[in-house]
C-alpha cells in the first residue's frame, strides 16, 4: 500500500524522449513523463510521507484527466500535457526510510534505473540535502516542495529548486507576529526555541535566533534534542524552570505529540506556543493531541477556502482518498509537483536542459496555484521569491487562520490554552 513501484515503460519512452530532444516532434507521441518522488514512506515520518504521496496522486489525477471544474489551476483543464501531445504523467515513488543515506540511494535508483525525468522530494531537509546532490551530479532537475533549511540553496546547485517558503521567510513571519504582540502589550521578553537537531531543526533555530537579534527580541533558552526521542520530561522541566513568554517548537510528528502529552502531564503551559509546521501540521498530530494543544500557533500557506472553490474541491478529492483534510505539508508537496509538471509542459520536452530553462522561466500567478503563495518565481539560487505563509491556530478540532488580520478567518485567541 505504502510502496508503489512504477510501471516500466522505459524503452518506448526513452526513444520518444530522444526524438523530442532533437526537436523532431510531430509523428511520435510522447506517452509518459516520469517523475520520481522520494518521500519517507516508512520510518518515523511515514505519516507525513503517506500524506505527501496521496496529495501527489491527487495532482496526477488532476493533470492526467480533464478537470474543467478546477478553473485556472495549472494543467487541470485538459487531459495530460498539452505541449507534449497530451502525454500523461507517471510518478515513481521511492521510500527514503527517514535516513539521508536511503534518500540518496533511492534518488540514484530513480535516476539511473527508473530513468525519471525529474525528481521531487524529500520532506526532511536533511534528506533533501543528500538526495538533491545526486540529482545535481546526474543533471536531473530536482524540486523540493517542502524542505526549508537555509543552506539547501546555498550550495550553488544548478538543478535545485524549491517552492516552499524558506527558513528566513518563516523567521520573519514569527518575528513580525511577536513584535505586534509586544506592541499590543503582551509580554514577549524571553523566547525559547526547542528544536530537533537534524538539518531542519538546527537551521530553523539558527535563522530564528538571528532574526530575533535583528528585531530586538531576546532568545533566552535554546533546547536542541535528538529526534524520535523516547522521553521529553527533562526538556519540559527546563522550560518550566525558565518560564519563557513564548516557545517555538521545531519538531517532527512523534516528538511534537510527546511534547504536548508531557506538558499536559507536568501541568505546564507557556503564554504563547508556536509549533513550526512539520509535526504540528500533520493531520495525525491534530487528531491525537489537538484537544490538549488548544491555541497552538503554526504557519501555513494552505486553506481549503469556501465550499465549491478550487482548493475546496482539491481538499474533497484528497479527503476521499485519505479520510483526512489536506494539511499544509501535503499541500506544499502537491504545489511543488504541479510546478514541476508545469515546467515540463512548457519545456514541451523531457530533455533535462529544456526543463531547467523552463523551471527558471516559471512565473505562476496566484490563481494558477492551490497554495496561498503570491506566485511561483525562482531567484538564481532556486528559491521561490513569491512564497508566503500566514499564521494559523488550533481552535477546537481544526486550524483556523488568525494572522495577519487581513487573511484571518477567526480572531486570535490568547494566551495559549492547552487543554
Amino acid at each position, binding site marked *: 500500500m505504502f510502496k508503489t513501484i512504477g510501471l516500466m515503460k522505459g524503452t518506448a519512452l526513452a526513444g520518444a524522449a530522444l526524438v523530442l530532444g532533437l526537436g523532431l516532434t510531430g509523428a511520435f507521441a510522447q506517452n509518459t513523463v516520469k517523475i520520481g518522488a522520494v518521500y519517507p514512506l516508512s520510518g518515523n515520518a511515514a505519516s507525513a510521507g503517506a500524506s505527501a504521496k496521496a496529495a501527489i496522486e491527487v495532482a496526477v489525477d488532476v493533470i492526467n484527466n480533464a478537470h474543467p471544474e478546477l478553473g485556472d489551476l495549472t494543467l487541470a483543464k485538459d487531459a495530460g500535457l498539452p505541449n507534449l501531445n497530451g502525454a500523461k504523467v507517471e510518478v515513481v515513488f521511492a521510500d527514503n526510510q527517514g535516513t539521508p543515506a536511503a534518500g540518496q540511494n533511492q534518488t540514484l535508483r530513480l535516476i539511473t534505473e527508473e530513468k525519471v525525468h525529474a525528481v521531487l522530494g524529500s520532506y526532511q531537509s536533511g534528506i533533501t540535502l543528500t538526495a538533491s546532490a545526486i540529482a545535481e551530479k546526474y543533471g536531473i532537475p530536482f524540486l523540493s516542495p517542502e524542505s526549508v533549511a537555509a543552506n539547501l540553496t546555498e550550495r550553488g546547485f544548478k538543478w535545485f529548486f524549491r517552492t516552499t517558503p524558506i527558513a528566513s521567510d518563516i523567521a520573519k513571519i514569527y518575528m513580525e507576529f511577536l513584535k505586534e504582540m509586544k506592541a499590543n502589550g503582551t509580554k514577549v521578553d524571553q523566547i525559547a526555541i526547542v528544536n530537533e537537531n537534524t538539518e531542519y531543526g538546527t537551521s530553523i533555530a539558527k535563522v530564528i535566533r538571528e532574526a530575533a537579534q535583528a528585531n530586538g527580541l531576546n532568545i533566552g533558552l535554546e*533546547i536542541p534534542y535528538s529526534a524520535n526521542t523516547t522521553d521529553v520530561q527533562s526538556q519540559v522541566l527546563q522550560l518550566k524552570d525558565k518560564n519563557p513568554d513564548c516557545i517555538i517548537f521545531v519538531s517532527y510528528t*512523534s516528538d511534537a505529540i510527546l511534547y504536548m502529552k508531557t506538558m499536559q502531564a507536568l501541568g505546564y503551559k507557556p503564554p504563547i506556543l508556536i509549533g513550526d509546521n512539520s509535526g504540528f501540521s500533520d493531520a495525525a498530530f491534530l487528531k491525537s493531541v489537538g484537544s490538549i494543544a488548544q491555541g497552538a500557533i503554526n504557519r501555513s500557506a494552505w486553506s481549503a477556502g469556501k465550499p465549491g472553490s478550487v482548493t475546496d474541491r482539491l481538499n474533497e478529492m484528497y479527503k476521499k482518498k485519505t479520510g483526512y483534510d489536506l494539511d499544509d505539508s501535503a499541500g506544499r508537496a502537491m504545489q511543488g509537483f504541479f510546478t514541476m509538471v508545469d515546467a515540463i509542459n512548457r519545456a514541451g520536452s523531457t530533455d533535462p536542459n529544456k526543463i531547467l530553462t523552463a523551471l527558471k522561466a516559471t512565473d505562476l500567478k496566484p490563481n494558477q496555484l492551490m497554495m496561498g503563495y503570491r506566485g511561483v518565481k525562482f531567484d538564481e539560487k532556486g528559491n521561490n521569491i513569491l512564497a508566503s505563509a500566514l499564521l494559523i491556530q488550533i481552535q477546537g478540532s481544526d486550524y483556523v487562520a488568525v494572522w495577519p488580520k487581513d487573511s484571518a478567518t477567526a480572531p486570535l485567541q490568547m494566551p495559549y490554552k492547552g487543554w
Partner: protein
Amino acid sequence: MSMSLLQVLIGGLMLGAVYALFSSGLTLIWGMMNVVNFAHGDFVMIAMYVAFMVWKLFGGGPFMAMPIAAMLLATLGIIAYFSLVRHVMKGPMLAQILGTFGLALLLRYGMFWTFGANFQSLPENLVGGTYDLWGIRIQASRLLAGTLAIVLTIALHLMLTRTSLGSKMLAVAEDSTAAQLMGIRPDRMQAIAWGLAAGLTGIAGALIATFFYISPTVGETLAIIAFVTVSLGGFGSITGALVAGLLIGVIESLSGYLIGAVYKDIVVYTIFIAVLWFRPQGLMGKN
C-alpha cells in the same frame, strides 16, 4: 530548582520502570533462554494497537486491554516459536538474528498495511489523570505502568526460581540435551517461554499505550533501550533488568535536565559501555 530536580528524579524512576516493563519479555527470551528476538519491539507495538482497538471498539482502558493483549500476544508468541524460531534455533546465531529481524519487518509493515502510517493516541485521561503531590506531578498512567512493571518482575522472578516449571525452563536454557535426558521436553518449555514472554509484552504494550503515541514504528524507537536494559542488567537476571531499567531512566532524565537533551544518549551509552567494560556479565548477571 530542587523541586524540579525531585520531579526529574521521580520522572526518571517512572520512565525507568517503563523501560523495565518494555524489556520484560526480552529478559526472558534473550536473557534467560539465549534466543535473540529482534521482533521484540514490534510485539510491544502490536500490543499497543490492541489497546487502541480495545478503546476504539469497546471504550475500554488498560484493565480491559491487558488480558486481551496478553492472550493475543501469547498466541502470537507461540505461533512465532513453532513456525519460525524453532527452525532458526537449529542454525547459527545469524539465522536467529535474520529470522527474528524478518519477523519484525513482517509485523511492522503488516501494521502499516492495516492501520496506515498515521500516529494514534489514546485519550489523556483514560487512567485517572495526573496527581499533584506538593507540586510533584505524577501521571496515573505512568504510575500504574511502573507499579505493574515491579510486580511483574517479581512474579517472573519467583516463577523461574520457585516453581518446577521455572526450573524446567532454566534447565532447557542451560543444556537442552541434558534436560531432555531428565524427561523435560525442550520444545514445550521453549514454546511456554515464548508464550509467557509475548504475553508479558502484551501487558507492557497495553500499559505503555496509555501515555505514549502509537505508530507502526514505535517498537523500533523503544527496542534499542530494551536491548541495552537487558544486557546492562545482566543475562540470566530478571531483577537485574528492573534495576537497569530504573538506572537508565534516572540517568537519562538527570543528564537531559542538567546537561542537555542532546547529550543524554551520550551519557547513558558511555555508562553502559563502562559497566560492560568492567562487568561484561552485566550488573547482576552471573559469572
